[in-house]
């Protein structure tokens, strides 16, 4: 494989490339089960996690992944935009360049921010979420989790519930699932359905109760409570009533179906606690796979060697 320098999104990946990440991640799953779950693949490499938006989980997941590969990891996070402090992303990029790190994992509120860094730097860039655009490693770990539960993607029926318009997780998952020939549907209030999404081959539904029984995978997205003020939905209570994954709705689901959530969940809003903790839920598998898939991503893009 001749990996591209950066991982900026899922949209441009081929099915073959996605599978290469899976295959390697499956090997790392085994590494993670060892008593000492560390390999020396990236010894001597320096990786920076650069988070301009608060996200404890993703940043920790990347750090753990990098450390399991024996890389040196530097974590940097700044919850306020650096622009407000007079430092631009370009300045930041030039500073990083001068410090000669090998790879940068970046999260930023602006769509295209990872691409912007990738164009400026020789270091490889992993997009850990750029605004509402993409969150490729999240989608890869979601897809990997789906494949652990189902034999193949062809004819797999996946439903994503929630604020699709503002969700990078939804976007990256939709791109990946369509590339792998799965059937994708979304269900949300019409205010949260982005224009033209059906042209991506996605079925659009508004009424969850009518359709939830048809799907193998049901993924609830985190609802941003502050969007209530933007008028996308009238109240958290009504959102839960119409779109929440409640016990009653879980009873309507297919026998072998699974429930996913990218986390962190608003328990009691988009997903009820007993549902999140139920047998159908694979949420903690997602977290576990997250480390393995990020190891695979780092390994491939850092040009690591197999022992």
């Amino acid at each position, binding site marked *: 494989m001749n990996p591209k320098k950066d991982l900026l999104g899922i949209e441009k990946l081929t099915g073959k490339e996605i599978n290469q990440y899976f295959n390697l991640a499956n090997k790392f799953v085994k590494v993670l089960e060892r008593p000492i779950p560390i390999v020396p693949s990236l010894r001597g490499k320096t990786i920076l996690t650069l988070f301009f938006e608060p996200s404890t989980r993703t940043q920790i997941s990347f750090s753990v992944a990098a450390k399991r590969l024996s890389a040196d990891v530097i974590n940097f996070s700044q919850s306020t935009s650096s*622009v407000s402090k007079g430092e*631009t992303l*370009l300045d930041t990029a030039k500073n990083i360049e001068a410090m000669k790190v090998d790879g940068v994992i970046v999260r930023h509120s602006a*769509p*295209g*921010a990872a691409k912007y860094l990738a164009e400026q730097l020789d270091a490889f860039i992993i997009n850990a979420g750029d*605004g509402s*655009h993409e969150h490729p490693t999240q989608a890869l770990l979601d897809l990997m989790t789906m494949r652990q539960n189902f034999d193949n993607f062809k004819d797999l029926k996946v439903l994503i519930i929630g604020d699709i318009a503002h969700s990078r997780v939804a976007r990256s998952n939709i791109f990946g699932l369509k590339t792998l020939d799965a059937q994708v549907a979304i269900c949300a209030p019409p205010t949260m359905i*982005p*224009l033209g999404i059906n042209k991506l081959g996605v079925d659009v539904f508004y009424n969850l109760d009518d359709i939830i029984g048809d799907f193998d995978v049901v993924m609830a997205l985190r609802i941003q409570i502050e969007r209530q003020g933007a008028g996308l939905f009238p109240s958290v209570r009504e959102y839960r009533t119409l779109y929440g994954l409640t016990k009653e709705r879980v009873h309507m689901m297919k026998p072998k179906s699974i429930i996913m959530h990218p986390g962190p969940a608003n328990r009691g809003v988009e997903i009820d606690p007993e549902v999140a903790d139920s047998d159908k839920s694979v949420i903690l598998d997602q977290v576990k796979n997250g480390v393995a898939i990020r190891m695979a991503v780092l390994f491939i893009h850092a040009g690591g060697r197999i022992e």
Partner: protein
Amino acid sequence: MASQSGWQYYLSMLEEGLSNILIKGGRVIDPKTKVNDILDILITGNKISKISKKIKKNDAQLINAKGKIVCPGFIDLHCHLRDPGRPDEETIESGGESAIAGGFTTICCMPNTEPAIDNEGIVKYIYKEAANANLCRIFPIGAITKKRQGKEITEFGELVNAGVKGFSDDGDVVADSNVFRHALEYSKRFDVPIFEHPIDKYLAQDGMMNEGLVSTRLGIKGSPAIAEEVIVARDLLLAKFSGARLHLCHISTKGAVELIREAKKKGVKVTCETCPHYFFFNDAVLESFDTNYKVNPPIRSEQDRQAIIEGLRDNTIDCIATDHAPHCQAEKELEFTNAPFGLIGFETALSSIIKELVNKEKFDWIKVLEKLTVNPAKILKEKSGVIKQGAVADLTIFDPKKKWKLTSNAIKSKSKNTPFLNKELIGKNIGVVINGEIKYYTKD
């Protein structure tokens, strides 16, 4: 000469003292008189003194226009010169340099300066700076409302008297329909156009590109076409109701073109403009996340782009304006979300028109050039925009076939925010004459 009658001889004696310019061998195209022929033009003083097949004049400054097109000077109804307020981005002088390099002899600057053009003092300042720069004609557009706040209308009488050619709160819509109604009604006293920036700010919110499939894929917040169309529809109703002159700025959507087309059929006094980037690009270019494509209104879908071209073809769209909007490099090299809207347009307008409308869409020259000359002149009630004997000599001479590249160093504007940077362009202005003076001339 013996054949001349007494007064003609006397007149030619008078003209001896005046400078002469002879533009030889060019294809003269005048949309107003429909002339399209290889002709010589003699300019005496500030006027066109003779147009004919072969003019001989030994003591004239000679411009060899063989293979070139000679037309009335381009008039831009819509630009931002950032002066007063942001001299780091543009000044009256640098904006003027950029305009004449692009073939413009008259430009109208929008009032979203700092402070806004909402009083006589700022209008006088602009005229003074324009006179000092001594480049092209620069006409200010006055603010519709005080400080462009959309609340109280400005003193139209004082501003018209000081020389504004129309009113606009450009950059912002006049959101309050009652204020806009009053602005239209009040403008009738002065017979000046009201230039609207037709974007509903509530629908557009903080949208940064056209809302549609591409914005959905890129996760960039969209500004929907309907935001433009809602205001166009409102304004057309108010224009019909008031009987005032409405000019709709930077039209970019299919729906807006359709609304204007219908209104014109019903006799509403409306004119409108579009800009080169709305018929040259579609929103797929945003995939680059290049902030030079971040403009307001946004670059729309391919369907909208086609509708803009059809609107130009059937004259629903009267003018092509640049919406020249300089921004300094530091601002445009921010990440997409934080970069400001706008691109510079003077120096690439002609090339994009030639490439897209003339070469690809097969518009004839008269149709293209009327949108840069006689049509905007009519809206401004200016006598320029025509080539005929006795007319003021405002002319543009361009090479329609010249291939060139726009480099950062060659840009005359203080700002370099253009998506055409380092791209292959076709067609180039080689000279402008303004009020009988050669203000720009280049042989390459």
